[in-house]
């Protein structure tokens, strides 16, 4: 892939090449970002941000008690750094790396070919500032057409980011990506007493359905006005929207070779992670080449090209997530780091599942972030619905809690696939016997 490295990166490479290092890499990260902020349709602030920085990583071979060890250190330099500052930073990294005696692992001097892959919207890449203004105008115009709710605030960011990577094995690649971030709040009801906060992130302009997003959150703000709190009890719950991205944190953490190496992983290779037969078997893969994936990338930090791989297949732990270091420590196949995680769908759509009487659909939370080490989850409910006599009744307040390890046997996944950051998977995750603490 083409690699348009700048003069500073060349100077950094030259200085690093002249040092006695086991391995080094340097990555230039350039970002141009436009930000527009509005309060009730009026501009609060418009910003242009331009950032260039250089990330340097070095590795040195050391010895401890006659044993070969490896030391590494990394640092970041700013755009306008002088040759003297570069030299000083590299010297500081070398001094630091000489102090570190981690168990040795081999970084092969290997030349790689990289897949042609950019995660980039051409319009944003060409001019993020114009796109930001155009999107802002569109949002403003769409918001005016919504009569039952007011758009209190929006923050819209559009960025283009270019990465240029090189290392001591003469590997080079460039990777371009674009990002759109839209955060907003709708108000509804008497005295604007109810609100719906939303955060949409995308890579490509055509991924954004502004009209649908705005209408949906205007509806949520209205539905929230008279939403009641559920009685305390155990419920069958559909987790959706804000719950999706971090839902499988526990499994992804315990599936990492780092957790195995550090002896706290509770997942065993080849063994089932679910002991009864759930409605949908769980399959999780990592895929670095998903267009629009928030974690899409070409290579790992050592410049090794990435590939998709399976982690859990049909409820069985099939492969630990093993980067170069831990794969060698544990004698496991190298997979590279986790990138986008792709979860296989089930058979029923969310629309079919939600028809079940007394089922609770939870969409919005104060913060839904299951604990990576324990699998516990707890969150205040901001908005959901319970199905009563075929109708969806809005609910809010109280909290939902449980532990995914204890509930995973009841798992059902929906048939529709959505993308939320690095999560590419079903739009509904269903668990039974979930505690809701309400009135």
């Amino acid at each position: 892939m083409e690699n348009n490295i700048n003069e500073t990166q060349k100077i950094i490479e030259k200085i690093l090449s002249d040092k006695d290092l086991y391995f080094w890499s340097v990555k230039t990260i350039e970002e141009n970002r436009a930000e527009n902020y509005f309060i009730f349709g009026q501009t609060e602030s418009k910003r242009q941000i331009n950032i260039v920085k250089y990330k340097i990583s070095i590795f040195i071979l050391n010895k401890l008690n006659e044993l070969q060890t490896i030391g590494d250190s990394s640092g970041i330099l700013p755009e306008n750094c002088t040759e003297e500052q570069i030299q000083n930073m590299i010297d500081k990294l070398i001094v630091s790396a000489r102090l570190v005696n981690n168990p040795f692992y081999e970084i092969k001097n290997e030349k790689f070919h990289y897949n042609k892959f950019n995660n980039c919207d051409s319009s944003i890449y060409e001019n993020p500032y114009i796109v930001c203004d155009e999107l802002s105008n569109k949002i403003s115009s769409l918001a005016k057409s919504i009569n039952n709710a007011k758009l209190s605030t929006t923050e819209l960011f559009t960025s283009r980011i270019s990465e240029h990577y090189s290392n001591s094995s003469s590997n080079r690649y460039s990777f371009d990506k674009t990002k759109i971030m839209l955060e907003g709040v709708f108000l509804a009801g008497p005295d604007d007493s109810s609100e719906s906060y939303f955060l949409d992130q995308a890579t490509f302009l055509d991924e954004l359905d502004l009209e649908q997003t705005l209408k949906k959150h205007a509806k949520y703000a209205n539905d929230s006005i008279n939403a009641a709190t559920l009685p305390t009890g155990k419920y069958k719950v559909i987790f959706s929207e804000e719950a999706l991205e971090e839902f499988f944190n526990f499994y992804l953490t315990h599936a990492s070779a780092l957790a195995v190496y550090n002896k706290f992983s509770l997942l065993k290779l080849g063994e089932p992670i679910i002991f009864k037969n759930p409605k949908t078997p769980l399959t999780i893969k990592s895929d670095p080449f998903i267009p629009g994936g928030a974690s899409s990338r070409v290579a790992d930090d050592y410049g090794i090209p990435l590939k998709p791989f399976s982690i859990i297949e049909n409820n069985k732990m099939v492969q630990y997530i093993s980067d170069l270091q831990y794969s060698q420590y544990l004698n496991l196949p190298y997979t590279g780091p986790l990138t986008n995680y792709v979860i296989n769908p089930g058979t029923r759509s969310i629309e079919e599942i939600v028809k079940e009487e007394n089922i609770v659909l939870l969409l919005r939370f104060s913060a839904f972030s299951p604990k990576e080490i324990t699998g516990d989850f707890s969150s205040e409910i901001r908005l959901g619905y319970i199905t009563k006599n075929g109708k969806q009744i809005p609910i809010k307040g109280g909290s939902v809690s449980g532990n995914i390890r204890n509930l995973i046997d009841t798992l059902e996944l929906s048939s529709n696939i959505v993308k939320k950051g690095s999560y590419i998977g079903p739009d509904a995750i269903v668990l039974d016997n979930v505690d809701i603490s309400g009135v």
Partner: protein
Amino acid sequence: MTNLKDYQQEFIDAVKTLETRFPYSSAFAQTVERSSVASSTREDKIIFPDPETGYVLTAFTGSYFIEYSSYSLTFENIKQGVETLMSIPFSKSSETFEIDPGEKLTKDFSQPIIKDPSIIDIKDFLQTARNNREEIDSLSRLIQMSMYRIGYEKRDELFINRNKVLFQSLCRFDSMYYMVLSDGKNSSPIFDGFCKIGGFEHSFFDKSRAKVVVEDGIKVLGAPRLKPGVYDCIFSQEMAGMFAHEAFGHGMETDMFLKKRAKGEQYLGKQVASKLVNMWDNPTLGEEDPEACASFFFDNEGKLASTTHIIKDGILISGMTDLYSASKLKIPRTPNGRRESYSHKPYARMTNTYFEKGNTSFEEMLSKVNYGYYVDYATNGMEDPKGWGIQLESLYAAEIKNGRLTGNIFSPVIVTGYVPDLLMSITAVSDQFKISSMGYCGKGHKEWVKVTDGGPHLLLKARLA
């Protein structure tokens, strides 16, 4: 570190030029030096995080701000920033307001450092982290992995507008540990640490405290969850701090008033809490307590540090302002205009936010509980300034029966409820005050700034699950 003062005159000139087109302009520049040294059970790590050297030029059009920010702190680039702002089109609004540049002041400030961490050998950092981590590893065979991290952040900031040339040099030292305990059936994390104004003089390791943390970690491992319900609770000082931050911290950031996202605006002057409750935001607290490390001398919009009394004897009396919201709402400025960095927009943000201590001893408080829980090890919280809901999460709830701790532990715990109900239910405030200093705070889900929070133990009624 780059010397920001080398660029002072360039920024003064930039502000002058910009004010030929705009009614108000300012410049903010920063340079940050950081290091982070971590020793964990099976490997060590030394990194030098992003120095975040850069600047932002701000121009006020009469109704909104335009900003240009860059990582490239050079004379040439500052000129380019000025040219960009001078040529950028902007729309005139009928709704205009004025920006007060404040009183004339040129002053340099600096926080005291006894052992400058930037001149301490990195070897000493690593050895300290290793020694402390080895001490922790020796405390229990159930510790599968522990990590001890120490580091520092030296931050210089320069603010300039037509009346002010302010420079501050801030330094804080971090020391934290984290461990994962596992018995093969369950795994559970626990952590502790601090961040203090100053330098390497704070590298002391409190092993007796670490012993307590490990013992609590063992109790948490595999602990059941409690039966959801409303209980009498004693919040630890750490939980009280998080409660202050989430309850009437975010809700009194006045940019939320402008957006009609905070119910607090309608309750100014009204009772929202028990008469025992006094709550403050105070960026000067660091002068008496080094752990109040979100302290500074002026905020990122040039307002000198001072205290803000948010709740006085249960009555909500003041919000926390940034320049835009204070100017537009025509309310007094408080020193709360803060940015994540030069490359981020300023918002109204908290600093050191806390409940004032009361006069009840912890033992007396405990004796008042027939059945309830002592809640400790706050992990995270979330605000709801519009609905006045709240979510506080913690690792640890210790059962109390007939005024005594039974030794039964439940984990994790979530506290939810309606903020005024929780605050009105406070029936005792302890006489012990502590700041918790490891936290950062986001606005929504981004814009991370260093904050601390704290307070005394609180006796109240809350819904736990």
